[in-house]
């Protein structure tokens, strides 16, 4: 987990793995759930201004990824559950 901008609020959830697709569709302040974990994810999160990236299904977070996230002020978290269960958890938290 890396929360360089930990004061962000979450107002909804977006789930997707095709980065170019997410880029145009994730909304500002969404939590974005994905299983992609390359550095491009940080760029897309920064571009779409999501409140955080959540790597589902326990996807590994490389040191490089965490470092870039910190540099670019992108919050990134990891969870062992799949995307659907993660979204349900978030739904309870933000409603």
């Amino acid at each position, binding site marked *: 987990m890396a929360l360089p901008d930990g004061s962000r609020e979450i107002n909804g959830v977006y789930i997707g793995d*095709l980065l*170019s697709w997410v880029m145009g569709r994730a909304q500002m302040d969404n939590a974005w759930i994905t299983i992609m974990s390359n550095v491009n994810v*940080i*760029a*897309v999160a*920064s*571009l779409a201004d999501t409140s955080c990236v959540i790597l589902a299904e326990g996807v590994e977070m490389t040191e490089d990824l965490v470092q870039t996230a910190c540099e*670019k002020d992108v919050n990134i978290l990891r969870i062992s559950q799949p995307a659907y269960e993660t979204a349900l958890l978030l739904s309870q938290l933000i409603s």
Partner: protein
Amino acid sequence: MKELSLNILDVAENSVKAGASCTQILLTEEGNLLTLEIVDNGCGMSEEVVRSVVDPFYTTRTTRKVGLGVPLLKLASEQTGGNFQIESVTEQDNPEEHGTHVTATFYTDHIDFTPLGDVTETLLTLIQGHPDRDFVFCHQRNGHVVELDTRELREVLEDVPLNSYDVMGWIGGNLEEQYDALSQADGHSGEE
């Protein structure tokens, strides 16, 4: 991108932006290996810039701080087990022969292979947007070829702009015919 043709469009636009008078888009299929090459005679990039263009936080745009054309093409290639490479010679280093050569390979039988999509549309978009530049396209598969060279068209057309309605229509129709012939050849080789 849902289609490789969109990645190609994105990266070929970089060639145009680099001042290339001619940009070649080459697709070569050998069995399950697809090689994409985008070769231009633009201003080229220094070694440092070549290293940084694969970084998604590098962009020549000033309107936003992220550029994903090259990183997404690299990702599309690597997620099929393929390779991605950029070679470039700057105009300063070699005023006679400069430009950039992007090579991406794809294993088309990998489940994460992005379909090629509508390459004809990509070419038409490039020509429409940049009628003063030249584009060479060559798609080879099983010894058959689909090709387009705007330099040849320009010679025949003389003063008629490449992006005039009739010329664009002809180019689109001609590429479609060539692709139909390519698919037919695929069918025949499958029967043998």
